C-alpha cells in the first residue's frame, strides 16, 4: 500500500515531540511524588497505628444494631415493642474447638439439640469474628448458671439484646405480623451492611410491609483489640439510627370487641373509618401468639400451628376468599337501577324457585314457599333469591361483571400490606381462559346471588361496602396513619380517591333497602336494631360451602359443622352520614342474620356508642 508522503516540517515536529515528552515526564514524576507522599503517610506517619492493627489481631468492627421502630394503635397503645433480654453468644474466632464447646454448653445449660443445629446452620453466614447467638431469652437461672462457668468457655459470653415483643399477642398476630430469624434465603437478598448487626427481620403483616421504615440503620464501632479479642480502644464510631415508629389506624378497643364477638367461630372482621379509609378493625381468627416466632419457633409449636384444622397462621382478612352470598345483592340491585333494567316499583312473583326458559332445573329460593309479589326494596330486605335470579338474567354477566369490578371486586384493595389476594370476579372471558368453557346462563343466575365462581376477601367486602356508603366514593383501606422519624412525622402519600359515577336517587334506594334489612320488622337482621337511635344499613349473607342436591333439603342439624354455610354480614352506620363500614365473615356460622350481624353490631355500637355521637 502506497500513500502520499506528506511534506512535513521535521524540525517543528521534533521540537513538539521533545517538549511534549519532557512535560509528560515531569507530570509523571509529579504523580509518582503523589504516590510516594501517600506511602510516606501510610508507612511512616501511620505506621504505628497500622502496625498495632495488624499485630493485635487487627482492627475489629463491632456492629451496633439499631432499635426497631415501635408500632402503636391509633390511640398510642403499643402493639410491638422491644424488650431487653439476655442471649448466649459465641465468637467462632475465639473458640478453640467448636464441637467440644457446643457439647459442654449443651450439657451445662441443657440446650435442645435443634438450637445447636440451627446455630451450626447460621454460623456459615457470619464472619469468624462475629458474635453469633446460640440461645435467646435466657432466664435468670440460666444466666447465673453460665456466669459461674464462664471462665471455662473462652469465646462464649452473655449479651443483652433487644427482643421484639407483641403485648396483644393473638389479637394482632395477622395485622402487626411478627419478626423472625433471618433465614438463608433472605440472607442472600439482603444488604450485608444493613443487616450485619441484626438477627431478625419482619416476616408478615405490618412488620413485613414496613420493614424498611421500622428497621433503622446499623452503626458500627471500630475497635482495637488485643490478642484475646477483647476491645481495648475505640478508634471510631458511627451510631446506629433507630427505626421509625408507626401509628396504625387500628383501634385496639374495637379490635378486641370484634375478636371477642367472633367467640368460637373462625372468620374475619374488618371495619373501615369512612372519613379516611383507615382500617379500624382487622381481625382474623383463629389466631396464634406471634411472640413464639421472635426467637425462632420450635418444631413442635410450629407443627401444632401448621397442622391445626383451624388454620391459625392463615390471614383470612387478606387471603381468605369466600363466596359473598347475599351480601352481593345490594350491588346487583344498584347495577339493575343504574342500567335501567329495573326500577323501584317493578315487581315480580316469587314462587320459591326459578326456572330458566325451557329448562327443568329449579333454582331455589331460601324461603321454600316463596315471597310472593316482591319489589327491589323488599327483595333486599328479605333477601329474595328469585328476584335476583330474574334481575341477573336481565342484566347479563357482562354488565354485572363490569359493575362489580368498579366496586373493587376481583382486585386487590391496595392496602399497605403484602400478600393480599385479589378474590375472583367471574366473566365470560375469565371462564374461557381459565376453564376453557363458554359461559352458561345458569351461572349468571347464581353469580347474581353471590354464589358460583365469585370469591371475595373480607377486606374487599368491607371496601365495597364503604364505597357504597360513600355514594360511589371509592375507599382505599390503609393501616399506617403516621410514621415518626425521631420525633418528626413523615407525610404518607395516599393515592387519589376515585369516584364511581352513580345517580343519587338510585343509591339512596339501595341504602334505604339496606336500612330496612336492619330496621324493618321483616328485615333479615332486625334483631340488631335494638337500643340505638341512629340507623344501620346492612345486608346479611349466607355462603354455601356444601351444595344441596336437587332432590335433597338442607337440614342444618344433620350436616357436619365444617360443611355448614358461612355467615356473612356487611353494614355501615349511621346510614345518613356513614362513619364506619364493617364486613363480618363467621366460617360455618350458618346464618348471616343470627351469627354475623350481631358481631358487626357490637363493633358499630362500640364505635358510635348507642346514639349520642350521631
Amino acid at each position, binding site marked *: 500500500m502506497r500513500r502520499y508522503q506528506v511534506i512535513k*516540517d521535521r524540525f517543528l515536529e521534533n521540537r513538539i515531540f521533545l517538549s511534549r515528552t519532557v512535560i*509528560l515526564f515531569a507530570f509523571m514524576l509529579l504523580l*509518582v511524588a503523589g504516590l510516594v507522599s501517600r506511602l510516606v503517610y501510610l*508507612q*511512616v506517619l501511620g505506621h504505628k497505628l*497500622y502496625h498495632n492493627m*495488624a499485630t493485635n489481631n487487627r482492627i475489629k468492627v463491632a456492629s451496633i444494631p439499631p432499635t426497631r421502630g415501635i408500632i402503636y394503635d391509633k390511640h398510642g397503645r403499643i402493639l410491638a415493642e422491644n424488650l431487653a433480654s439476655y442471649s448466649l453468644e459465641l465468637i467462632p474466632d475465639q473458640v478453640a474447638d467448636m464441637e467440644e464447646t457446643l457439647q459442654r454448653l449443651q450439657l451445662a445449660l441443657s440446650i435442645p439439640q435443634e438450637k445447636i443445629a440451627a446455630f451450626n446452620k447460621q454460623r456459615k453466614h457470619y464472619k469468624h469474628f462475629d458474635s453469633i447467638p446460640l440461645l435467646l431469652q435466657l432466664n435468670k437461672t440460666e444466666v447465673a448458671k453460665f456466669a459461674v462457668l464462664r471462665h471455662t468457655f473462652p469465646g462464649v459470653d452473655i449479651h443483652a439484646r433487644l427482643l421484639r415483643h407483641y403485648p396483644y399477642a393473638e389479637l394482632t398476630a395477622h395485622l402487626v405480623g411478627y419478626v423472625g430469624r433471618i433465614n438463608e434465603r433472605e440472607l442472600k437478598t439482603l444488604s450485608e451492611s444493613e443487616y450485619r448487626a441484626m438477627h431478625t427481620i419482619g416476616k408478615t403483616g405490618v412488620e413485613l410491609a414496613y420493614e424498611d421504615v421500622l428497621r433503622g440503620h446499623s452503626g458500627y464501632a471500630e475497635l482495637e483489640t488485643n490478642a484475646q479479642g477483647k476491645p481495648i480502644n475505640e478508634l471510631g464510631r458511627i451510631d446506629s439510627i433507630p427505626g421509625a415508629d408507626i401509628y396504625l389506624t387500628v383501634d385496639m378497643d374495637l379490635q378486641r370487641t370484634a375478636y371477642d364477638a367472633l367467640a368460637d367461630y373462625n372468620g374475619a372482621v374488618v371495619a373501615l373509618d369512612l372519613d379516611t379509609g383507615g382500617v379500624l378493625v382487622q381481625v382474623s381468627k383463629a389466631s396464634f401468639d406471634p411472640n413464639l416466632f421472635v426467637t425462632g419457633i420450635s418444631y413442635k409449636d410450629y407443627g401444632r400451628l401448621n397442622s391445626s384444622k383451624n388454620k391459625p397462621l392463615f390471614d383470612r382478612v387478606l387471603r381468605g376468599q369466600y363466596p359473598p352470598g347475599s351480601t352481593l345483592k345490594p350491588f346487583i340491585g344498584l347495577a339493575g337501577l343504574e342500567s335501567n333494567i329495573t326500577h323501584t316499583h317493578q315487581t315480580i312473583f316469587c314462587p320459591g324457585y326459578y326456572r330458566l326458559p325451557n329448562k327443568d332445573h329449579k333454582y331455589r329460593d331460601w324461603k321454600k314457599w316463596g315471597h310472593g309479589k316482591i319489589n327491589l326494596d323488599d327483595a333486599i330486605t328479605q333477601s329474595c333469591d328469585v328476584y335476583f335470579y330474574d334481575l341477573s338474567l336481565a342484566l347479563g354477566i357482562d354488565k354485572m361483571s363490569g359493575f362489580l369490578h368498579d366496586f373493587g371486586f376481583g382486585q386487590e384493595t391496595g392496602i399497605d400490606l403484602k400478600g393480599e389476594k385479589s378474590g375472583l370476579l367471574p366473566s365470560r372471558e375469565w371462564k374461557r381462559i381459565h376453564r376453557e368453557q363458554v359461559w352458561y346462563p345458569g351461572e349468571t343466575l347464581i353469580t347474581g346471588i353471590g354464589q358460583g365462581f365469585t370469591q371475595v376477601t373480607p377486606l374487599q367486602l368491607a371496601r365495597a361496602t364503604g364505597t357504597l356508603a360513600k355514594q360511589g366514593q371509592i375507599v382505599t383501606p390503609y393501616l399506617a396513619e403516621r410514621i415518626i422519624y425521631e420525633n418528626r412525622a413523615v407525610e404518607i402519600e395516599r393515592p387519589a380517591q376515585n369516584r364511581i359515577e352513580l345517580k343519587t336517587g338510585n343509591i339512596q334506594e339501595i341504602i334505604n333497602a339496606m336500612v330496612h334489612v336492619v330496621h324493618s320488622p321483616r328485615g333479615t337482621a332486625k334483631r340488631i336494631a335494638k337500643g340505638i337511635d341512629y340507623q344501620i344499613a346492612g345486608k346479611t349473607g349466607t355462603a354455601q360451602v356444601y351444595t344441596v342436591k336437587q332432590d335433597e333439603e338442607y337440614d342444618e342439624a344433620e350436616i357436619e359443622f365444617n360443611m355448614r354455610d358461612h355467615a356473612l354480614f356487611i353494614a355501615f352506620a349511621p346510614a345518613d352520614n356513614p362513619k364506619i363500614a364493617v364486613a363480618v365473615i363467621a366460617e360455618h356460622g350458618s346464618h348471616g342474620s343470627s351469627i354475623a350481624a350481631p358481631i358487626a353490631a357490637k363493633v358499630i355500637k362500640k364505635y358510635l356508642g348507642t346514639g349520642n355521637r350521631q
Partner: protein
Amino acid sequence: MKVELRAEQFKEHSLIGSLLRKLHIDIPLLVGLLLLLILSFMMLYSTGNKEAALLIRQAARMGIAVVLMIVLAHVNPRQFQRYSIPLYSLGVALLVAVLLVGDVGKGAQRWLDLGVFRFQPSEMIKITTPMMIAWYLAGHDIPPKWRHIVVATIFLLIPTLLIVRQPDLGTSLLVASSGASVLYFAGLSWRFLLSTILGLSALAPLYWQFFMREYQKDRVLTFLNPEADPMGKGYHIIQSKIAIGSGGPYGKGWQGNTQSQLDFLPESSTDFIFAVFAEEFGLVGCLGLLTIYIFIIARGLYIAVQAQDTYSRLLAGSLVCTFFVYVFVNIGMVIGILPVVGVPLPLISYGGTSMVTLFAGFGILMSIHTHKKILPH
C-alpha cells in the same frame, strides 16, 4: 544525530553488547524488565503458598512473553506501520465477537474461546489502537488538523466503548489513554486538551447514569468513603491500607507479611500485590520499585525521542505512557487514592494476559530503537 550514531557504534565494540545488538535487544530496558520479573517471582513465591504449579505456570508465561518480545524486536517498525490497519480492524472485529459469543467470567464478557486457549481481544487492542492512530496521524500534518483529530478520536472511541460494554472499566481506561497519548504526542493543542478534560468531567454524571453497573458504582462510592461499609465493600481497601501501613519504613521482610498470609487481604497475588510488596519491603522497597518503573519509563521515552520517523515516535511514546498509567492506576488504587478498577501491577501481578501484551509493547520499543540506523531516506 551524528553524535548519537557514534555513541551507538561505540557500544558495538563490547562482545555481549554486540551480540544483544544483533538480537535487536535494548540492554537498559532488558535489565529493568528482568529486575521486575525477578521481583514478580519472589512475590508469587511469597503470596502463593509456595505452590510449585503456580510458579511453573507463571515462569512459562514469562518465557512466552520474553520470546514474543524478542520476535517483535526483530520486526522492522515499517512493518508495524504497514499492518496497522489490518491489525486494528482484526482487534475491533474480535471485540465485537466477544460481545456476541464471548465467555462470561465474573459477570463480564471478556474472553473468546478459541478451542485450544482462551483469548482476551481487549489485550491486543491495547497495542493496535495506538498503532492505528499513530499510522493515521503520521500520514497527515503534525500537529494534527481538526478533522484528523476527529477521525483519530473515532478510532479511539470504537474499541474503548466496546470494552466498556463488556464491561471492563480498567482495560477501557488503558485503551483510551493509549490512544489519547498518541494525540498528545502529535501535538494536540493545550487548549484543546484542557477543554476535552473539562468536557469529559462534565460528562461523568451521564456516564455514571447510563454506563456503569452497580458493582462499578459501588467501587467508586467505596473509594470515596471506605469506612461507610468496613465489613463489606470497604473491607478490601481498609485491609490493604493496614498491610501497607504495617510494613513501615523497612518492611517485615520477604515472606514476613502477616496480613496476606493470614488471608486478611483478598486478591493478594493479583491486583493487590503491591500491598503485599509494601508490607514485606516497606517504604524503602516501594521507592526501589518505583525507581525501576521510572527507569523503564525514562528509557522508553528516550527511545521515543530518538525514533526517526513520526509513526515510530508516536507509537513508542504511547506505549510508554500506557505503561505508566498501569503503574499509577494500580498503585493508586491499592494505596487508596484511586477507586478500585481491575488493573494489575505491570509485570509483578500474577496472570499472563497483561504480561504478554506489555512485553509485546517492549518488543516494539526495542524494534524501533534497534532498527533506526537504517535511515528512512
